[in-house]
């Protein structure tokens, strides 16, 4: 216990709260983009996951992700129900804060990741199969991938893959799972024929602003201490968001007018892209990462539109492709001059790191997409993922929850 640092503990407690707020922030980010008959439903898809995954994580999620390694693939059950997770730090993960705090900080990541996926199936998903999906997905996709990348003995960590705050674990898994879910559930009625106008873009702006702030907890908190790596992560996070928002504004302007919805989307994409490299790259590297993230996601949205795929709120384009670029960019821009605990990337003379990053990302993409496809197909066959035609037309607020957002 003599290793406990009050400063580190205070910062990670604060960061935990910041990451928690990202989930309701995401609820508003998404909630503004749907039609008003689905506003409450969309807010709730994120909110309920705070409850659902908090319990899953305490009961068995944490131990699957961070329990003693079994064969490189999954954690053992030693920490079932947070057993043995207490005040004593665990030197494998964070030597200066209580292990219980580390576990709880990680809980917030486990919460927001499935919430990200909800953007792909809003306005048509049945609530019960959604709840079942979320628990299955957290157990079968998130917990194993978190183990592979972050846990001591995880095979991607052993391979040398860098993921400072979850570009691979959070954003690639969520983004590519969203793609699979959208393909299985199918498009909203009237998709491509009638305009599906965002009903409250100010909500989306509010959500994006709170996400930007919460991301300081997400990335700088991932340093797991009040230290220079945390400071670097906070600065690169802010810088990448700024660069991406500006470039998105220019792209949007070139195609018409500078869309506010576009600008705030750009900021979020920049935050996604910097996540895996936040603690390993310089502020100038962050500008490049954010600036390149914007066109990647922008044109990914265009491609998705052209393919007529109703991946409704572009989780794949923003988180999947933004996260993939972030993983690759970490292999380009990482430098041990910023963080001795990391590795150098291609631009600092280590091409091998780029290869490692790409391989780790590719394995995660195949696993997340494939398994989500199977889970959603199975759920569709047994529980039926979609609401009835009439329920969809009336809107999920009334049909699934018996409530109206606005009266």
């Amino acid at each position: 216990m003599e290793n406990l640092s009050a400063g580190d503990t205070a910062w990670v407690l604060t960061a935990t709260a910041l990451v928690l707020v990202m989930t309701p922030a995401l609820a508003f980010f998404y909630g503004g983009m749907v039609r008003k008959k689905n506003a409450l439903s969309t807010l709730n898809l994120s909110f309920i996951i705070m409850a659902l995954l908090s319990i899953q994580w305490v009961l068995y999620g944490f131990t699957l992700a961070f329990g003693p390694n079994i064969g490189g693939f999954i954690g053992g059950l030693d920490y079932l129900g947070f057993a043995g997770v207490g005040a004593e730090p665990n030197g494998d993960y964070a030597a200066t804060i209580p292990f219980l705090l580390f576990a709880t900080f990680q809980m917030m990541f486990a919460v927001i990741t499935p919430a990200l996926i909800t953007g792909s199936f809003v306005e048509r998903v049945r609530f019960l199969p959604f709840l079942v999906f979320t628990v299955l997905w957290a157990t079968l996709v998130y917990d194993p991938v978190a183990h592979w990348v972050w846990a001591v003995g995880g095979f991607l960590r052993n391979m040398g893959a860098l993921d400072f705050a979850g570009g691979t674990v959070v954003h690639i898994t969520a983004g590519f799972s969203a793609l699979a879910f959208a393909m299985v559930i199918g498009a909203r009625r009237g998709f491509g024929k009638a305009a599906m106008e965002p009903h409250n873009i100010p909500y989306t702006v509010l959500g994006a602003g709170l996400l930007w702030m919460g991301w300081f907890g997400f990335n700088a908190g991932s340093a797991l201490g009040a230290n220079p790596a945390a400071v670097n992560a906070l600065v690169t996070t802010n810088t990448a968001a700024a660069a991406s928002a500006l470039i998105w504004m220019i792209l949007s302007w070139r195609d018409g007018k500078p869309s506010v919805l576009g600008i705030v989307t750009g900021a979020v994409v920049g935050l996604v892209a910097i996540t895996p490299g936040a603690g390993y790259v310089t502020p100038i590297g962050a500008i490049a990462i954010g600036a390149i993230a914007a066109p990647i996601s922008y044109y990914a949205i265009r491609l998705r539109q052209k393919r007529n795929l109703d991946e409704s709120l572009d989780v794949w384009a923003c988180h999947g492709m933004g996260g993939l670029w972030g993983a690759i960019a970490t292999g380009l821009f990482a430098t041990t001059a910023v963080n001795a605990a990391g590795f150098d990337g291609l631009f600092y003379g280590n091409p091998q790191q780029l290869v490692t990053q790409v391989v780790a990302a590719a394995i995660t993409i195949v696993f997340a997409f494939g398994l989500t496809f199977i889970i959603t197909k199975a759920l569709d066959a047994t529980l039926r993922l979609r609401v009835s035609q009439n329920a969809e037309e009336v809107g999920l607020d009334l049909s699934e929850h018996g409530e109206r957002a606005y009266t």
Partner: protein
Amino acid sequence: MTKKIEVILREEKFQDVKDALRKIGIIGMNVVEVRGHGRQGGITLEGRAGTYQVDMLPRYQLNIVLSDHNVERTIETICAAAKTGNPGDGIIFVYPVDDVIRIRTGERGAQALHYKGDIDDRRASGNGHTAAATAKV
């Protein structure tokens, strides 16, 4: 004879139209928020990446019931105030009205439409537009 005119107009022109009507003594009216489109079809809005079409556009629908002999002047006033010259300026429909009943007094027909200082009062008093008449309403 009594007519109803139903005016679909741009939201941003409503204040101008109301002021112009007040000036000629058209006082009673109500307004409804509506959505729709005419020949204009729709407009293009900015999305996250690229644009999309919206074809049900917000407009105000202004309803006025008035005597036959005031219809032309009212229409001219509305057109002058509501026009921008761009597609989407709106449209006016004129309907016959069978009867008008003022609930408080039970007055009917043209009598029920009368306001102190309105367009007919002004005609009777030599088209005078007095501050007092305006203030009364």
